[in-house]
């Protein structure tokens, strides 16, 4: 550190940083444009000129290294004059009107102009006449607004070492372009967004930022993490995966999720739906990477250790051993509480075990992940159905209801109580437990969601001769994944979208179902379904078994003593997770209806934190398991990066899989996991780039009008 004086003010600055950065760090603003903290100096804009030790000479402060006792002036008649000249020259080729610029109100150049009190009109102005380039994914260029500060080039070259951008010159006009004037994708761009991040003007722009002006920057820049209900640090674990450190990768996931392998098999992967990579070709195979790393982790970093606060002496009872309940149990235990989980069924896991069929999620996976939680000291009582939760308050300081939605909905339909009519939840539970299902040979499943397909595909595996599935929704809006529908059809299941269920035929036993075609299907403002049927479109399917897969609700009645809300949910405040009864909280499907395992985990985490606070803790359930990553700035050039194809999992053929409950999806193979991980844009790295501080954020601001 050395002491220097700037405009009469003594400050201490580091000898390794230029005077400009030293001043900025100390809250003294010196106008600048091409300087950026994270980039090598360019010395081109000459806005940051100062004079030293009373000399009349000016020198750019970005290239001036501080020395003990240096006396610096940032203002003088000469400096002001030159600075104005610099600004005037800078703007000679820049559009005069800001109001149509996407960067308006958010632009470093614009505030610099404001700081300077506007530009003069003594320069000959010209319009550069470049065409806006919106052909690239994620990033757009409008070289008419470029002031050639060169930040983008330095970001791409020096910071990221990708080397895609450079100064180019055509018809005596300099511009920033790709090395060979090709599209970014064809030049090996890694779409890291560093160029857009550092650009002080509206020239290089992030399309998503422009499209989402109201969202938080972090959520737009890193959408996968924002979309994940528990905000897993996805790019971080993908980097570990790429380096072959599957323990490190799993530890990152384990910081948020106690069911990484299960989720690796069956997560609804909302992260992938918003992954930025899909703008280039296909989204990252995030779920399969998760599955791979957690299946290949030895437990280093996360199995031992982790957080464990000393015992508090407080007792918590959790009702329901599904993902919501078990997650809350684990984190409450880590906060030092004495946790007991009461589960009605004979085993823990909730819908992971009693809903999702074995062929999609092998049971050993659940066993292992549940065991980790009980090993941490959570007490599990199975076969223990809680009828009167209020009474638990006598023995426990807090209670969490995480009872899921275990009661299938039987639609009010003629014939709905005939022999041969089954309900999704019961059917799947029986299948999972290896019990008699009472299914016949020809099965019709009513419903078009993933649960319906689980029913239909389980029926095929149980040996049904013919399985059909019908639903109200048109094919494009069916809620089941496309993948799921495709695989079901491969297994011989006939799918009938856009059908109304008229009645179940038969006397005593089911003989079939009558349908009609749906012309349109909408919801009115009161969320009531409005269905228009196509006249004379009656259709009948013969069958001996009908399975209702038209939703499921919580298996609870007002007798339990808690207020019941919409669709038989436990009435709960979504912010506090409190039920109508003090000390009794609720989380997971039972408060919002069947969603997903990861939502249940998120809800369980939230419950743990809130209950911890209720019991006197600080509610901070975060923990650090993964090793620190070194700071990453360089990512290097990869030829054809934008075209790297998504690696698909290995899947058994329909014939091999349709007569058994064995797993059929083997995930990514060893040779693919690194390649798939390489595809990630590492969107998070952009958030490490220093954001510009605009002049009005400095203490020494002076309004010059």
């Amino acid at each position: 550190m050395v002491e220097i004086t700037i405009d009469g003010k003594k400050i201490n600055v580091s000898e390794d940083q230029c005077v400009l950065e030293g001043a900025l760090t100390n809250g003294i603003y010196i106008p600048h444009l091409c300087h950026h903290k994270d980039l090598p100096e360019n010395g081109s804009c000459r806005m940051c000129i100062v004079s030293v030790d009373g000399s009349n000479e000016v020198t750019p402060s970005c290239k001036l290294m501080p020395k003990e006792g240096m006396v610096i002036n940032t203002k003088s008649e000469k400096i002001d004059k030159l600075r104005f000249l610099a600004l005037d020259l800078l703007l000679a080729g820049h559009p005069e009107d800001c109001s149509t610029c996407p960067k308006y109100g958010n632009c470093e150049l614009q505030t610099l102009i404001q700081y300077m009190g506007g530009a003069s009109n003594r320069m000959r102005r010209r319009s550069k006449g470049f065409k806006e380039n919106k052909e690239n994914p994620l990033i757009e260029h409008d070289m008419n607004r470029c002031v050639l500060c060169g930040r983008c080039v330095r970001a791409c070259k020096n910071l990221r070492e990708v080397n895609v951008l450079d100064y180019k010159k055509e018809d005596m006009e300099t511009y920033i372009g790709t090395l060979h004037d090709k599209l970014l994708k064809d030049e090996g761009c890694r779409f890291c967004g560093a160029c857009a991040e550092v650009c002080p003007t509206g020239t290089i722009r992030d399309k998503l930022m422009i499209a989402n002006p109201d969202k938080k920057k972090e959520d737009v820049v890193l959408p996968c993490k924002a979309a994940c209900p528990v905000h897993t640090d996805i790019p971080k674990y993908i980097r570990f995966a790429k380096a072959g450190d599957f323990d490190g990768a799993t530890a990152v996931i384990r910081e948020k999720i106690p069911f990484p392998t299960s989720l690796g098999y069956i997560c609804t992967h909302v992260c992938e739906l918003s992954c930025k990579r899909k703008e280039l070709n296909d989204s990252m195979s995030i779920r399969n990477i998760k599955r791979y790393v957690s299946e290949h982790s030895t437990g280093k970093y996360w199995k031992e250790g982790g957080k464990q606060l000393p015992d508090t002496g407080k007792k918590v009872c959790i009702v329901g051993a599904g993902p919501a309940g078990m997650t809350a149990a684990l984190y409450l235990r880590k906060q030092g509480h004495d946790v007991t989980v009461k589960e009605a069924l004979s085993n823990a896991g909730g819908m992971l075990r009693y809903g999702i069929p074995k062929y999609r999620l092998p049971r050993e996976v659940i066993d292992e992940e549940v065991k980790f939680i009980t090993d941490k000291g959570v007490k599990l009582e199975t076969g223990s159905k809680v009828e009167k939760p209020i009474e638990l308050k006598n023995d426990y300081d807090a209670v969490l209801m995480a009872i899921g939605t275990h009661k299938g909905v039987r639609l009010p339909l003629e014939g709905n109580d005939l022999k041969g009519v089954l309900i999704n939840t019961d059917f799947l539970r029986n299948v999972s437990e290896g019990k008699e299902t009472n299914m016949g040979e020809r099965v019709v499943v009513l419903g078009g969601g993933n649960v319906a397909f689980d029913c239909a595909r389980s029926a095929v595996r149980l040996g049904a001769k013919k399985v059909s599935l019908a639903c109200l929704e048109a094919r494009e809006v069916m809620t089941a994944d496309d993948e799921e529908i495709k695989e079901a059809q491969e297994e011989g299941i006939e799918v009938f979208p856009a059908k109304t269920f008229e009645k179940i035929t038969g006397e005593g036993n089911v003989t079939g179902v009558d349908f009609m075609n749906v012309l349109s299907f909408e919801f009115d403002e009161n969320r009531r379904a409005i269905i228009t049927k196509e006249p004379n479109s009656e259709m009948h399917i013969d069958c001996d078994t009908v399975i209702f897969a038209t939703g499921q609700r919580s298996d609870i009645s007002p007798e339990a003593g808690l207020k019941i809300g919409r669709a038989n949910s436990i009435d709960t405040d979504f912010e506090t997770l409190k039920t109508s009864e003090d000390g009794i909280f609720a989380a997971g499907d039972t408060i919002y209806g069947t969603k997903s395992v990861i939502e249940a985990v998120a809800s369980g985490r939230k419950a743990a934190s809130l209950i911890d606070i209720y019991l006197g803790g600080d509610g901070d359930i975060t923990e650090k398991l993964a090793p620190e990553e070194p700071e990453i700035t360089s990512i290097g050039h990869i030829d054809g990066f934008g075209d790297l194809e998504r690696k698909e999992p290995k899947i058994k053929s329909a014939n091999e899989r349709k007569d058994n409950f064995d797993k059929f999806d083997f995930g990514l193979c060893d040779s693919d996991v690194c390649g798939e991980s390489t595809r990630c844009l590492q969107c998070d790295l952009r958030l490490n780039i220093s954001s510009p501080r605009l002049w009005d954020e400095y203490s020494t601001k002076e309004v010059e009008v």
Partner: protein
Amino acid sequence: MFTENMDTEKMLSLIESADIYEYGVFKESFTAKLNEYKNSGKAKTIIAAIDNVDTDEMLLEVLYKNSKEVICGMKAVANILSISEMVIYLPEGKDDLVKIVENAAKELNTEILIKTGIVDVREYREAFITHVETMTAVNDVLEGKKADKALIQIKEVFGDDTKLSEIKELEYGKAISDIFDTSKVSIKAVEIGYKLYDKSILQQPVTKETVLGTGVITLYDKSCCMVHISKDLSLKMREHSCGKCTFCREGFIQLDMRHGEIVSKKGELDSIGIMKDIGKAMNFSCECSVGTYGANDIVDILDKFENEYISHIKKKDCPEGVCKAFTNIYIDPDKCIGCTKCIKACPIDCIEGKEGYIHMIEDMDCTKCEECIKVCPQNAVVITKKRTPSIPNRLTRVGRFKQY
């Protein structure tokens, strides 16, 4: 060539006692520069090139003739500074020279990176950048020869013509007029190293401290329009600038645009002051010699020949008659025989006429390319700074036009 096994102390002391100066625009003691880099120890690369600003490229002669000497000089400096990377920058499009340098490097078993274009001073912030001519001087000194001369060429510029002399070696202590006959030109100004002098400079002895710049000494004849010269210089540098520095890029654009206005009769008086401001500021506001030296001669012209600017702007007159916008063109109705040759020659079709009729030039559109003058068998097309006499205003048969 000097022996590679010479130890660096010996080399340094030989260079020191010869007291070489850098060639080109950056005149400084080479010994001092070398010691400075030796003490800081930061340089990892040595770069030899002609000056970025040098568009004459005469000094490439050094590489054409003495590539090996240049490389040996670089190796010596590299040894002294413990540098491993050696780079030679060549102007764009010199494929033959690339071959020559490559071969020389191969023969000397030396790895040299050849880059083209102007030296990227930003990429090579810490490199030891030197002139190719200086490197031959270093080599000479290490070989026991003297480094006491510079390459010189004379460029004579007339109203619309230039002439280049042969390249000669000038021994320090002698004057330019000692080796070149400069008496034939009636000199208006002399330019050496981007500065303007009067002709007495030619008689003064040149020393190793003299800034010779590109080595090309430009003599501007009395017939030159200095505004026009300045316009050409601005355009050349506008094209040459790499565009990274605001002052160099935008400065030359402004100089070019303003000069363009002045030579096309649209000049404004305040341009003179603004151009001086810009040109003077460029000198200390750019990162390489293109910006720092490239406008110096333009500023000198603005200062020394302000009266010519004022003529153009205020009197609407180009005193030397070079700027075409200030001249009038017409076809003398008494001389024209109506042969239509000029119509066919005019590239922009601004001549009206037909066989046997007196031809007329639409002088609003005429670019004064003078193609018609070249083809007219009667010398009937006239370019003049005077006013156009009365000429037909509609098609008139040859011989029928009467002047009143």
